[in-house]
C-alpha cells in the first residue's frame, strides 16, 4: 500500500519552512543588541519570507488524495530506527499556514510593545515558529515529540520574561502542566514502538492492529499530553494564567496555534493508531467537551479581566472543537478542524486587539474601560467583527465551524447537540456584554484622548478580518483541503484496525 506521495514542489519545502525561522534566529544572534530597528526588520523579513514560502503549500496541495504530500525522509538515528520524516495531509496543511501567518502578526504587534531584550524576544518567537511547524509536519513519532517538547523552551521564556505581573507563576505552571502530560505520552510512544516492531513511523503505526486493553492504556497516555494542550476540562487551569500573563504575541501564539496541537494530536495519533479505544472512549470525550463548552462559557461571565475572559472563552471554544472531532462523522470532524483554524484567527485577533489597546492604557480591567467606540472608531469596528465571529454569527467563519460541529454533535448524541447549542447562547452573552462594557456606555475619563489604531496595527488585524469573511462566506476553499484526509481518517476509525481498513478499501475498489 502506497502511503506517501512524493514531493511536488521540487525542493524540501517543509524543512525549509522549519529551518528558515531557526536560521533567522541564528542570524539575530549575530546582530548587535543595540540595533533594535535592524532586529525588528530582520524578524519581520524572515517571518514574511517563511509565510510566502508556505503559500506554495496552499497552491500546490493536491486536494484529491489523503496521502502525505511534500514528503521528506532521511535516516536520523538508525540505532533506534528514528527517521527525519516530514509530510502534510489535509488535516495538517492549514495549521502550517496558520502558524506562518500568525508569526508575522506577532512580530508586527510586538513592534513597540516589547520594551526590553528585543533580541531574545524575537529569537524566541522565531524558534517557536520553527518548532510549531515541525510539530505539524513530523511523520515520525520521536521527531514529533522532539518538536513538541522543544517548543516549551521558547514559550516558557516568552511568558516568563516578557509577561505580566504574575508571569513567573504562569510560566512555571504552563511548563509543568505540559511537561507532565508529555512525558506520559513519551512512555506510551515507547510502548507502542516495541509493540509495533521497533518503529516510530506514524504511517506504519497506523496500519497495525493493537489489543484493545493496550489501546485503552495508550489512549489515556496520549490523552494526558493532548488534553492538557487543548486544554480539555479538567486540565485547563494552566490556560487562563498563561494566556493572561503572556505578552500579546505569546497569548496570540498560544491561542492561535499552540492549543491546536492538542486537538491535532488526537486527530493525527489517538484516532488512527488507536481506533477501537477512540470509539470506546467517545462518550467520555464528548462529555468532557460539553462540560468545557458550558463551564468555560459560564466562567467567562464572571471575569473582570479582558484577557482572562478571552482565555476562558478559549476553553469553551476548544470544547466545541473536541466535540466536533469526537463526533466521529464528517460534518463534526471537518467542523472541528475548521473551527480550530477559526479559533486561531478569531482569538488570535482578539488578543491582538486587546494587546493594541493595552499598549495605550496599560490596564486589562474591563471596569477601567467604557465608551472606547467614540474614541477609537476604527478599532471598535474591527473588534466588533471579531466579537461577531467569536459568537458565530452567519457570514463569519465562526458560524460555519460551529454549525458543522453542532450538526455532527447531534448525529453523535442528541443530548450533546442540545447542550452545546446552549454554549453558543452563553457565548453571545459574555461577548456582547464585554463589547458593551468596553466600547459603549459612558466614556470613561481614562479613555479620552486615546489615539486610534495606526497603520501597523491595522496591517496586523486586517488579514484576520478578511479571513473571517472569506471562511464565513465561502468555506469550501478551506474545507476542500480536508475532505480526502478526513474521509480516510473516519474510515480508519469507524471500521477498526488495519485488516478491516484494507478489506473496506478492496470493496470500494470493486464497487467503482
Amino acid at each position, binding site marked *: 500500500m502506497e502511503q506517501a506521495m512524493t514531493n511536488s514542489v521540487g525542493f524540501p519545502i517543509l524543512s525549509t519552512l522549519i529551518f528558515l525561522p531557526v536560521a533567522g534566529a541564528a542570524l539575530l544572534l549575530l546582530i548587535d543588541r543595540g540595533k533594535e530597528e535592524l532586529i525588528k526588520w530582520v524578524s519581520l523579513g524572515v517571518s514574511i519570507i517563511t509565510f510566502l514560502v508556505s503559500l506554495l503549500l496552499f497552491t500546490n496541495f493536491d486536494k484529491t488524495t489523503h496521502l502525505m504530500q511534500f514528503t521528506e525522509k532521511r535516516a536520523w538515528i538508525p540505532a*533506534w530506527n528514528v527517521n527525519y520524516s516530514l509530510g502534510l495531509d489535509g488535516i495538517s496543511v492549514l495549521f502550517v499556514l496558520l502558524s506562518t501567518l500568525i508569526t508575522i502578526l506577532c512580530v508586527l504587534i510586538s513592534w513597540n510593545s516589547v520594551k526590553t531584550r528585543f533580541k531574545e524576544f524575537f529569537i524566541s518567537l522565531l524558534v517557536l515558529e520553527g518548532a510549531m511547524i515541525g510539530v505539524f509536519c513530523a511523520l515520525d513519532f520521536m521527531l514529533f515529540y522532539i518538536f513538541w517538547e522543544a517548543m*516549551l523552551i521558547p514559550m516558557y521564556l516568552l511568558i516568563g*520574561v516578557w509577561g505580566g505581573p504574575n508571569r513567573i507563576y504562569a510560566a512555571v505552571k504552563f511548563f509543568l502542566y505540559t511537561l507532565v502530560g508529555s*512525558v506520559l505520552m*513519551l*512512555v506510551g510512544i515507547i*510502548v507502542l514502538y516495541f509493540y509495533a516492531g521497533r518503529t516510530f513511523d506514524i504511517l506504519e503505526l497506523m496500519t497495525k492492529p493493537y489489543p484493545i486493553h493496550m489501546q485503552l492504556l495508550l489512549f489515556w497516555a496520549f490523552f494526558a499530553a493532548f488534553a492538557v494542550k487543548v486544554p480539555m476540562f479538567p486540565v485547563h487551569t494552566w490556560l487562563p494564567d498563561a494566556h493572561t500573563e503572556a505578552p500579546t504575541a505569546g497569548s496570540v501564539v498560544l491561542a492561535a496555534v499552540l492549543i491546536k496541537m492538542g486537538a491535532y494530536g488526537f486527530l493525527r495519533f489517538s484516532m488512527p493508531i488507536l481506533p477501537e479505544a477512540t470509539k470506546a472512549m467517545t462518550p467520555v470525550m464528548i462529555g468532557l467537551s460539553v462540560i468545557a463548552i458550558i463551564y468555560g462559557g459560564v466562567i467567562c461571565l464572571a471575569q473582570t479581566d479582558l484577557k482572562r475572559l478571552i482565555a476562558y472563552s478559549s476553553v469553551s471554544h476548544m470544547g466545541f472543537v473536541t466535540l466536533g472531532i469526537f463526533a466521529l462523522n464528517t460534518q463534526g470532524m471537518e467542523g472541528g478542524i475548521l473551527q480550530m483554524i477559526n479559533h486561531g484567527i478569531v482569538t488570535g485577533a482578539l488578543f491582538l486587539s486587546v494587546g493594541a489597546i493595552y499598549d495605550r492604557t496599560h490596564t486589562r480591567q474591563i471596569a477601567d474601560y467604557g465608551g472606547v467606540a467614540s474614541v477609537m472608531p476604527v478599532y471598535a469596528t474591527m473588534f466588533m467583527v471579531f466579537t461577531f465571529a467569536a459568537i458565530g454569527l452567519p457570514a463569519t467563519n465562526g458560524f460555519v465551524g460551529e454549525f458543522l460541529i453542532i450538526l455532527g454533535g447531534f448525529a453523535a448524541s442528541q443530548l450533546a447537540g442540545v447542550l452545546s447549542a446552549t454554549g453558543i447562547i452563553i457565548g453571545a452573552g459574555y461577548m456582547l456584554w464585554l463589547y458593551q462594557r468596553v466600547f459603549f456606555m459612558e466614556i470613561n475619563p481614562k479613555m479620552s484622548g486615546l489615539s486610534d489604531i495606526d497603520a501597523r496595527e491595522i496591517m496586523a488585524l486586517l488579514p484576520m478580518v478578511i479571513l473571517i469573511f472569506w471562511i464565513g462566506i465561502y468555506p469550501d476553499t478551506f474545507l476542500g483541503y480536508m475532505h480526502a484526509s478526513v474521509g480516510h481518517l473516519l474510515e480508519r476509525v469507524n471500521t477498526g484496525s488495519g485488516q478491516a481498513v484494507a478489506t473496506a478499501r478492496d470493496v470500494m475498489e470493486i464497487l467503482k
Partner: protein
Amino acid sequence: MQFVMPNLVPVMPEIALTVLTLCILMADLFIKRKETIALMSVISVGVVAYLLVGSLGTTFNGMYVSDGYSTFFKLIFIVNVILTVLISVKYIEVEKVNFGEYYILILFATLGMMLMASAGDLIILYLGLELMALSTYVLAGFIRYDTKSNEAAMKYFLLGAFASAFLLYGTSMIYGLTGTTDIKAISAYIVQHGLASNPVLTLSMILFGVAFSFKIAAVPFHMWTPDAYEGAPTSITAFMSVGPKAAGFAVLGRVFMVAFGSVKVEWAAFLVPIAILTMALGNIVALSQTNIKRMLAYSSIAHAGYMLLGIIAGTTDGMASVLNYMLIYGFMNMGAFAVVIMLRSEGFKGDNISDYQGLSKTHPVAAALMLVFMFSLTGIPPTAGFMGKFYIFMSAINAGYAWLVIVAVIFSAISAYFYLRIVMYMYMKEPKETVQLSTSPGLGLALAITAAAVLLIGILPSVVVNSAKIAVVGF
C-alpha cells in the same frame, strides 16, 4: 621454573598513566607555574587515550579485562579529567590552593577509576576503588583553611570507609561461597551449583549493592553527598559528580551483570526500590535548596536513580543506555559546574541560587549556556539530556519495566521545577548587584566543549549511541 611475562598490552594505559603521574609528581618540585602541571596532566591523559585504542584484551589470568565496556568508561574518565583541569586552573588560584598535588591527585583518582572499570577480579576492583576514594577524600578537603571543605572531606572519608568495609565483607562472603574472587568464575560457579536462592549469596549481593550505592550516591546511602558536594572545592565537586559516579556504575554493571547475571531477579528486587527512592528523594529535596552546589548534589543523586533503571533492565541495551547517559551526564553536569565556578571570584562565593538573579542582563552568554545545561539536565529536547533519558527509558520499557519508567518520568517532570528555577532567576528577575565573572581561557574552552557536546549529541546522537552499543557487545 620459568617466569612467563604476562601480556602487558591491555594494562598499558594504566602503566603509562602511573609513570607519567609519577614524573609529574617529580616535576612539580621544580616547576613554579602550576599551569604547566595542568598542561602536563592533560597531555598525559591524552597519551592514555591514545594507548587505549589498541589495548583490548585480557591479562593476568583474567584479573584484568580491557574490553569495549571498560574502554568507554575510561574515555568518560579522560573527558572528565580534561574538563576538570580546564575549569580548575583559574579557580584554584582564586581559592588560593594553587598546588601541583591537586592535579596529581586527580590523575591518581582517575587511575583508580580505570582499574575499577577494567577489574575482572574483586581484588583489583577493591584496589581501584580505594585508590580512587583516598585521592578524592584528599581533594574534597583541599581548601585547608575552609572548615566546610574539611567537613566535606571528613564526612566523605568516614562514610566512604564504611562503604569499603561493606565491599570487603561482600567479597569475603562470595569467596567463602564460591572459593574465587574472579568475576567470571563466580558467575560460572553460581550457575553450576544452582545457588540462585542461597541466602549467603543474597546477603553478599546486598552488601555489594550497599557499597556501590555509596559510590553512585543512591538513596539511602547518599547522606554524604550534599555536604561533600557543598564543602568540596567546586571543581572537585564537578569531578566527583562524574568520575567516581561513573566508576561506581562501571563496577555495578560488571559485578551485577556478569558475576550475578544468572540471579538478576534477586538483585533487581532490591535495586528497584533503591532506584525509586533515589529518584524521589533526589528530585524532591532538590526543590527546596538555596545553594546551587547542594541543588546539583541532589540532582546528581536523582540522575543516579535514572541510570539505575538501565542496570535494572538487565539487558545489553540497558547497559548501553547507562554508558550513553553517563557520557552525556558528564558533559552537562560539568558544564553546569563550569558556570558555577565562573561566578566565584575573589571575595564573592557565588554559590547561592539568588546570585543568579538577572544574570541574563549582566552576562547574557553565561546565562544562555546555563540555560542549555539546565534544560539538558531536565531532559528537554533538543538537548543531549533528552536523548540520554530516552534511551534509558526505552531499554527499561523493553525489559518490562514500563511502570517504573512512569515513576521516573513523573519525577523527571518534578525536576523541571528546580532546574527551571535557575533559568527563572537568570531571565525573569532583575539583577541585584553586579556579579563579576572570573573567566579564563581554560574555563571558556571547557564551556565551549560541554555546550557543543550537549547540543550536538542532542541533535545527532547516533555516534554516541552506536559507540555505546558497540561497547557492550559481548559483555
